[in-house]
């Protein structure tokens, strides 16, 4: 009799233990699992490698500047400083840039002219998309209707008119100038824009985009306003 009771309890306890362990396993399952496949991991790796090489080349440039400073420390330190300032101003987009590039003309579409429709201004949303499309290419300088687009340039609607850097751009037709660094890059950008589906979006707004042939010499205007960096501060010395 006693044996039977103990065997019953053993059986019940075994079942309870099993259930508790399963519940424990289920509840403690990790929330997010790494479900990337090999290809995604390869892409991640490629991205990191690219970043790595970019950082290395930056280190190289800085080392070069440093050695220049050291070399020129004796004869003319101001000259090197001035050069650095010039490079930085160029990077920030404050100077005019001349180099290989291309022009893009935004014009009213033929259909709109023939049917006599009102030519509306380009909408900020469309212009932002177009600028983003151009910015797929690295190292390019862009001005729209004479307004240089820099990193902090806002493209937005001000009192019903599309404005860049706070200044309104004209109704089409107007020109965009793009300096691409090398003629090769300009060629690539031109081909990319010609084949880009974004041109269809212009067509909906009764606009057409003419991507001109790349030129050896194109001049992109400099940024003419004040740079306001409200929230940037110099890092403290360590």
């Amino acid at each position, binding site marked *: 009799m006693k044996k039977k009771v103990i065997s019953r*309890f053993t059986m019940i306890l075994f079942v309870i*233990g*099993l259930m508790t362990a*399963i519940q424990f396993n*289920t509840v403690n399952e990790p929330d997010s699992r790494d479900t990337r496949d090999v290809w995604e991991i390869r892409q991640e790796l490629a991205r990191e490698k690219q970043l790595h090489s970019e950082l290395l080349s930056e280190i190289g440039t800085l080392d070069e500047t440093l050695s220049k400073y050291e070399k020129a420390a004796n004869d003319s330190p101001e000259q090197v400083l001035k050069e650095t300032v010039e490079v930085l101003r160029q990077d920030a987009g404050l100077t005019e840039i001349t180099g290989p590039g291309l022009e893009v003309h935004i014009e009213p579409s033929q259909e709109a002219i023939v049917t006599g429709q009102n030519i509306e201004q380009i909408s900020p949303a469309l212009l932002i998309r177009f600028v983003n499309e151009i910015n797929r290419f690295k190292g390019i300088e862009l001005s729209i209707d004479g307004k240089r687009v820099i990193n902090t340039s806002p493209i937005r609607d001000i009192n019903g008119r599309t404005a860049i850097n706070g200044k309104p751009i004209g109704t089409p037709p107007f020109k965009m100038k793009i300096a691409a660094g090398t003629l090769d890059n300009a060629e690539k950008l031109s081909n990319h824009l010609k084949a880009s589906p974004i041109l269809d979006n212009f067509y909906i707004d009764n606009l057409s985009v003419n991507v001109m042939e790349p030129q050896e010499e194109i001049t992109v205007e400099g940024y003419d306003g004040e740079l306001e960096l409200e929230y940037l501060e110099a890092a403290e010395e360590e």
Partner: protein
Amino acid sequence: MWLSILGLILGLSLGLLTDIRIPPEYANYLSIAVLAALDTLFGGIRAHLQQVYDDKVFVSGFFFNILLAAGLAFLGVHLGVDLYLAAIFAFGVRLFQNIAVIRRILLSKWTEKKSVRESV
């Protein structure tokens, strides 16, 4: 008694080592089932200590309570009423009562033994 604890350890280790998992949607049901099982277990121990243990009642109660609790939870989910709370409440209260009774019985046994030893 040690054999039963061995059974518990065996069940636990089997579950943990084989890494069995159930879909997370069913985790609620299993937790209520575990609670029902614990309730039955302590009820059985109490009944055994009170000399009213019945094998059939114990085993049938074990499975029936588990199924009832899980079924109640299932019904609650489909009716939009948190019926599993009823099961948790009932089993939780009974669990405490049973444990309290077991404690009293063990305490009285212990004091009895002690007084017998002292009288001897």
